[in-house]
């Protein structure tokens, strides 16, 4: 025991030395006392975060291992369910309700469908938004008359609260709505399986593309004009300038934008909840994981806690893959931008 603790102390000391080494190199020498004062200064933030984030997370995980209250058949009253082990998790992952598989019409039967729906929305919206956003950013980056006006007006969809966006598109996609009138169609936008999904994707793309465009625009603006001049002198045509100069240099900003959007899209709740109520198709064609969590809350907290933990793990996994393998480093990117190395 004492050996272990000794080793770990040594580790910490070493890490501290490593961590403070670059800071010393920067010139301003830090005394130990200042480091401690720093700890005191961040302590309120740490405590606050632990209270408002740490506690609920831990509590949710604890709850997810408890059974939801069941009915006492004799009295008709709820009695607490006791320890559940992993049964709340297997309920969702294996779609088991009691001893049988969950029949259609139970939330348990919708888990994998909603995982699929969530990832489908994420993939579709992010791909479309990045392509459109890139195009919009390149346009906005050019110098022309009225550029300020264009940049401001592009922001409008992003500035509208999602709930209102969803309601606007709800009216547009109503059976007697604008969409069917303009297209001369009779599509049940909130009823059909793919129609309802397209409705969500269209509304989301409309709302969020400006966000992507602005993030990319920020990346574009730090590319020095000389690099383009040099490329032009070397005889590169505009497509080559885009693929050989713009894309590689904007890549860090682009990756950050994509990471933000992917995480955002995986959590999507408000837009489908208001636009389609999670319905369409067989009744849950647009039910995302977050909608499923909220539906389950009224049917039992502990089971909902397990579901939200699963959702968290899924999103965490995706974020991890992004950061680890695709090199989306928000903080690094910003630091390097500040230093002017990008």
């Amino acid at each position, binding site marked *: 025991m004492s050996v272990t603790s000794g080793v770990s102390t040594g580790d910490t000391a070493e890490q501290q030395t490593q961590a403070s080494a670059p800071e010393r190199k920067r010139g301003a020498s830090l005394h130990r006392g200042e480091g401690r004062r720093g700890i005191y200064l961040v302590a309120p933030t740490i405590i606050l975060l632990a209270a408002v984030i740490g506690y609920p997370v831990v509590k949710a995980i604890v709850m997810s291992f408890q059974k939801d209250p069941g009915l006492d058949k004799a009295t008709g009253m709820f009695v607490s369910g006791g320890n559940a082990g992993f049964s709340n998790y297997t309920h969702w992952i294996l779609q088991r309700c009691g001893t049988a598989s969950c029949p259609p019409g139970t*939330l348990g039967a919708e888990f994998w469908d909603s995982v699929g729906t969530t990832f489908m929305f994420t993939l579709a919206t992010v791909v479309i938004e990045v392509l459109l956003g890139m195009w919009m950013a390149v346009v906005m980056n050019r110098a022309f008359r009225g550029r300020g006006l264009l940049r401001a007006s592009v922001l409008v969809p992003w500035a509208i609260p999602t709930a209102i966006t969803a309601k606007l598109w709800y009216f547009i996609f109503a059976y007697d709505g604008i969409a069917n009138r303009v297209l001369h169609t009779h599509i*049940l936008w*909130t009823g059909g399986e793919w129609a309802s999904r397209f409705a969500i994707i269209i509304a989301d793309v409309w709302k969020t593309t400006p966000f992507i465009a602005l993030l990319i625009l920020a990346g574009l603006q730090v590319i020095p004009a000389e690099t383009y001049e040099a490329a032009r002198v070397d005889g590169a045509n505009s497509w080559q300038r885009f693929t050989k100069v713009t894309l590689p240099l904007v890549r860090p900003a682009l990756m950050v934008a994509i*990471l933000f959007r992917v995480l955002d899209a995986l*959590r999507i709740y408000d837009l489908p909840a208001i636009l389609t109520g999670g319905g369409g198709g067989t009744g849950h064609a647009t039910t995302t994981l977050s909608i499923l969590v909220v539906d389950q809350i*009224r049917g039992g907290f502990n089971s909902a806690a397990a579901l939200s933990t699963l959702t968290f793990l899924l999103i965490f996994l995706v974020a991890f893959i992004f950061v680890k393998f695709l090199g989306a480093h928000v903080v690094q990117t910003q630091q390097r931008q500040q230093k002017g190395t990008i």
Partner: protein
Amino acid sequence: MIRRTRVFSAAMASLGAGVLVVAMAGCGGDDSNNASKNTNARGPITYVQGKDNNNVIRPLIAQWNASHPNEQVTFKEQSDQADQQHDDLVQHFQAKDANYDVVNVDVVYVAEFAAKGWLQPLTGQFALDASPFLPATVKTGTYNNTVYAAPQSSDGGLLYYRKDLVPTPPKTWDEMMGDCSIAKAHKMDCYAGQFAKYEGLTVNAAEAINTAGGEIVKSDGRTPDVDTPAAAKGLTMLVDAYKNGNIPQQAITYQEEQGRQSFEAGKLLFMRNWPYAYSLATTDGSSVVKDKFAVAPLPGIDASKPGASSLGGHDAAISQYSAHKATAFDFIKFLTSEETQKTFAVKASLAPVISSLYDDPTLVKQLPYLPTLKASLNNAVPRPVTPFYPAVTEAIETNAYAAIKGDKTVDQSLKDMQAAIKAAGS
């Protein structure tokens, strides 16, 4: 370190749902003998209800407060969303809030709150005389053979029809389907109810099933009994009508409002809706049917018995955590009194729970649909009284929706509905 920060904040970003679950779960725990506490205590109480749209509650409370100086009632107004009202009540009950004395509960949630041990049984000294009430409304407040809530307002389905085109309203479903040729001749849609996948579909599907002699759950409120020939007959009525176009294809996106708008625009011959649509269709500037429509009871299977409406409305209950239950009980008696019920009807168009009021000439003059509504409510069947209502209604909605759209057969969807309701209660 940088990488860790990144992953950490990404993780934080995805935690919203988890936090919400915990926030709503709060702290639980059970102590069973709250029902015997404070039963004779008097003092100030709080009355909790959803948004008071017609400003009818506040004047009533002022009237009560004038005559009860030592038992003042404070009004706590909730939002106008049924889900939010439910969640607000759950949070305050879980916190054992002694300041939620008398609560107004949507009929579908009474069983859940009763089974949680949050509602004071209305037995013994709290027993109400049930004889003036419509029998179906009393059933909505009864769980496990014990009355937990008093009926406060009711609601039932009506058949709205165009009296200029259909002189005598159809008494049976088949007659109504026959009348659809009139709709066709006028290039109108024939019939619509609430067929979007939400609570309204549960109401409409249950009405079809109950009308045909089927039932969703047995009288114990728990055992599903929907996989029967009678239930299949009921659901088939809707499925066939949707297939042959008597129910227009867009009706599976209809909630109450879309149906009402179509009817007011003169595009719909028959509509199943709640009484609220009556005054709107009469007064709306955009309504082209102001004096061209009337209401009838829902059509039945044969002409001798009208259709079975589902029951809406709210009940009033006393919290087990109330510190002044004697006052709370008096206030419930006040809310359900004939006088107060009349005020609700006149000022807020709320359907009374006292059956004699439906024949009151002054009321009928103001709300001409009352006699029809009484016929509807006399045949009404409460929605399943179950503590697992959210899961049960999900089971009904999802499978009825799939059947109406033709995604699966009526038999298969009733089998799934049966299994899903069973799974909901386990």
